[in-house]
């Protein structure tokens, strides 16, 4: 009984404890860390067992409240969604360790509000990963977005303005998605994704279906900050409190890319064989342009966190391009990159959060002498940076390798070139940071006489998750053969 419903417990734990944090956190601050870590830890362990069960017994459909699909809401637990479940809860757990510390410093007295939104956001993301119902997806997308708006607005200075712009753009995205679902409902009379997919081919390649998909995909592109629609992301993510950044940056865009992959595999690809062949190359070209443009923008930034946000925009281009190349290699690369990119982004943002905790700023001229004063943090940062660049034993190399193979197989050389250019740009970006970190700035050298900086590592609670993620990046890199063969290959549809 429990093993059958385990994924529901995984989903419910952060949701319920989010409400409890708000109530009990007012009484005593001690409850906040107990409830947050307890529920997210439970979810991570639970998600691990869900993944094991799915790998052993195969994927299964789950109907909530016994309302049979297509009328009731259906959840789909297959190897990919189980893997995403583990990824979301694991990343959220590690991020919360560091967030507990940095929120204490940045938002004293508001911790219970922060972690209420934080936990409900995790619950929303877990729901998004599982759902197989198009309208349910919209509702969960808005639950996650509303919590993100709130978390970002808790930042200092311009953060509320950035959050407001995000609300406007995010609502446009969500409304476009809703409109697309409305068109599909008129055409098929159902909201269940698999059911929609089974009825669509009968419609043929009509303009109505094409319009529906255009709305849905553009809506998701706004939410994931695909290049020309990325305007809201850099401000929102760089101004958010660092405790929120470590969680939102690795997960939000990546889960939205996962949703696009689901929509693409389940609904779009079966229908698309009836026509509209010209769309694929167009999207791949757009993705290549996105990668190069976002990398160029990253070069012109003067703040570490802002630079990382532009790298996120470039990485979204990788994954979207990989999905729309629509061959087995590229899709494998894109799905693997969802996992790897979440971990790399988590690693870099955790490091950034630790640096902010000690230095108070991430502007490039404040980064001097970091390797001497925060050696562990910077060691982990270097692993994350190498993974972003794509240096072999780290995870980033393997997904990029599959993406490049897919690009060559599909004959899209522009995508291959974009990937290589972006890797080079990443190398330039990160070696610049490493250079800043090795040499103390002028005033620091004078202040300490011999240029010696005291070791001032971030608190243990922030360094531990960072080291863990850095190790995970290498472990996932070495184990990527297993992830590809045992999980991702199972979900790539046979006709690719």
């Amino acid at each position, binding site marked *: 009984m429990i093993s059958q419903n385990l994924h529901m417990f995984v989903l419910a734990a952060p949701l319920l404890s989010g409400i409890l944090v708000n109530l009990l956190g007012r009484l005593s601050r001690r409850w906040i860390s107990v409830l947050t870590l307890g529920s997210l830890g439970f979810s991570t362990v639970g998600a691990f067992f869900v993944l094991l069960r799915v790998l052993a017994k195969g994927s299964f459909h789950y109907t909530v409240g016994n309302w049979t699909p297509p009328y009731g809401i259906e959840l789909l637990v297959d190897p990919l969604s189980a893997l995403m479940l583990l990824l979301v809860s694991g990343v959220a757990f590690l991020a919360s360790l560091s967030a507990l510390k940095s929120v204490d410093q940045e938002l004293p007295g508001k911790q219970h509000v922060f972690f209420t939104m934080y936990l409900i956001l995790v619950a929303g993301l877990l729901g998004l990963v599982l759902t197989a119902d198009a309208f349910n997806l919209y509702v969960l997308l808005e639950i996650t977005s509303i919590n993100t708006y709130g978390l970002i607005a808790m930042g200092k200075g311009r953060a509320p303005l950035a959050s407001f712009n995000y609300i*406007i753009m995010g609502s446009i995205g969500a409304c476009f998605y809703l409109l697309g679902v409305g068109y599909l409902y008129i055409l098929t009379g159902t909201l269940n994704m698999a059911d929609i997919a089974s009825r669509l081919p009968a419609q043929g390649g009509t303009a109505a279906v094409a319009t529906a998909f255009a709305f849905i995909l553009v809506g998701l592109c706004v939410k994931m900050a695909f290049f020309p629609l990325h305007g809201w992301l850099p401000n929102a993510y760089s101004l958010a409190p660092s405790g929120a950044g470590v969680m939102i940056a690795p997960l939000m865009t990546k889960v939205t890319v996962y949703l696009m992959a689901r929509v693409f595999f389940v609904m779009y690809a079966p229908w698309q064989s009836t026509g509209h062949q010209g769309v694929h190359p167009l999207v791949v070209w757009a993705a290549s342009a996105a990668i190069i443009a976002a990398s160029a923008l990253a070069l012109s930034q003067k703040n570490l966190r802002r630079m990382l946000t532009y790298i996120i925009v470039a990485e979204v281009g990788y994954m979207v391009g990989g999905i729309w190349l629509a061959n087995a290699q590229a899709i494998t690369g894109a799905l693997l990159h969802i996992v790897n990119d979440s971990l790399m982004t988590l690693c870099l943002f955790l490091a950034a959060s630790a640096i902010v905790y000690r230095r108070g700023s991430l502007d490039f001229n404040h980064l001097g002498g970091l390797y001497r004063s925060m050696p562990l943090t910077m060691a982990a940062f270097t692993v994350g940076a190498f993974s972003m660049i794509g240096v072999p034993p780290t995870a980033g190399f393997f997904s990029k390798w599959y993406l490049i193979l897919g690009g060559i197989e599909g004959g899209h050389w522009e995508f291959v070139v974009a990937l290589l250019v972006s890797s080079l740009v990443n190398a330039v970006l990160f070696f610049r940071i490493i250079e800043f970190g090795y040499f103390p700035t002028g005033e620091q050298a004078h202040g300490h006489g011999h240029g010696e900086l005291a070791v001032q590592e971030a608190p243990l609670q922030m360094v531990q998750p960072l080291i863990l993620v850095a190790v995970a990046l290498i472990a996932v890199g070495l184990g990527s053969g297993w992830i590809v063969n045992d999980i991702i290959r199972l979900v790539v549809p046979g006709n690719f």
Partner: protein
Amino acid sequence: MESILSEIVAKYNYWIYVILMMIGFYAMIGKRNLVKKLLGMNIFQTAIILFYVSMGVKRGGGIPIVDKHEALLHGVNPAHIDNPVPHVLMLTAIVVSVSVTGVALAIMQRIYREYGTLEEDEILEKIER
């Protein structure tokens, strides 16, 4: 010309939805005042509600509440009742739109406290200074 006109008259609710949506979209993108942007967002969402509600309605359809015994004995003629599903979906969408509006208003309050204005140009001017 004649056929276009009759097409518009026959599906006037869908045309109103498109016009409303464009008004809202313009306000969200084009206006520089944050309150007007938010109002544009609400118009946009209302347009979608109109779209969903009108897709469930049928000419000559009644409310979808049927007598259980009657329905079990004689069955239900779907032409005589409106489709309730899109209407129910919109209940959820209204809740979503109200919560987004609430969050946006709260954030706007913080912006006003910080900058003393809700005009985007003036805020940007103050930031640059």
